[in-house]
């Protein structure tokens, strides 16, 4: 299982208290651009397995988390490093741009 399901219940453990870089994809099932982003996120998870933690957050089920991080447009991709937010990408984002930030 290379992509983690992240939600309010495990956000602290898997993201805030996690060492190294974590890539998070905020999405919803009804969001067409999110569906196009999803395979790109899966590819990154596969390629960087063991190096970068990759997770997806369903905003329908985690509205408080989305609000806390000011997610107002999906997909939104966030990269955390040692529990601190490093970079936010809004909208479907080129894989290379994400990989560059994950180096």
């Amino acid at each position, binding site marked *: 299982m290379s992509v983690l399901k992240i939600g309010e219940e495990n956000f602290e453990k898997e993201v805030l208290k996690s060492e190294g870089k974590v890539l998070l994809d905020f999405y919803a099932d009804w969001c067409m651009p999110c569906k196009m982003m999803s395979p790109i996120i899966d590819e990154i998870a596969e390629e960087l397995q063991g190096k970068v933690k990759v997770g997806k957050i369903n905003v329908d089920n985690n509205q408080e988390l989305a609000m806390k991080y*000011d997610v107002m447009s999906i997909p939104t991709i966030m990269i955390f490093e040692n529990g601190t937010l490093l970079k936010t990408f809004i909208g479907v984002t*080129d894989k290379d741009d994400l990989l560059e930030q994950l180096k």
Partner: protein
Amino acid sequence: MYDVIIIGAGPAGVSAGLYVKRANLNVLMLYKGESALEKAEHIENYYGFENGISGKDLYLNGIRQAKNLGIDVKNEETINIRIDENKKYTVITENETYKTKAIILATGNKKNTAKIEGIKDFEGKGISYCAICDGFFYKNKEVVVIGNGKYAVSEANELINIAKTVTILTDGKDLPGINNIKIDTRKIRRILGKNRVEEIEFEDSKKLKVDGIFIALGTADGNDFAKKLGIITKNNKIIVNENMETNVAGIYACGDCTGNLLQVSKSVYEGTKAGLQAINYVRENLNV
């Protein structure tokens, strides 16, 4: 059901259309608004015109050439594109709804960039370019749509059942004939807020409190459709590979909307490539 719908009738769109039509596929070409080529006074750097040619003549010749070859060409504004099940698409225009197997975006360069102070600063912080994607975040909130055409009305209609209030702000322009949506025609001075959009200030110095702003200026272009469909863009240009394929299967982009050289020759090449690729796609994937 069309095999291919081409949006745009400039050098890229027409070139794509010529190849698709000659491959005996069922093709529809939709266009509306001004082409950048139409505004070019004189073109002297394109092959085959010994005395050069006016941009307008070249543009109109292209549309006539497409029609003469039997391409279905319609002067209709495309308002939305939806992805259906089974890799098919629905293209919604001001008049009609069409189904298609593949789409070629040849809409030209962004014509309607918003010049209102604050827009860039608040992108993703209360400013959105896609009502259907981001409306969810404005449940029972007060939102506005900035725009003055059918595209703005379409975006407002997407929001009307979600948001508490929806107002179209035309920024000084007219938008007659709309009954179900509130319209404010005052000129906008700037968008204000701390970490996110909070208020719009008009030229008369009065302010309007808003939770969200949806941008839908003029006619929707390739970049607007890309954002709704999940096509990768960068700096308002559609990202394609060497075959003019976007990251969404069956959708191609060519010409000025993919960036780089804004030249007729580049658009003709990309249109050709997109057309040929769309032909292969329709034949291989959809058993024509």
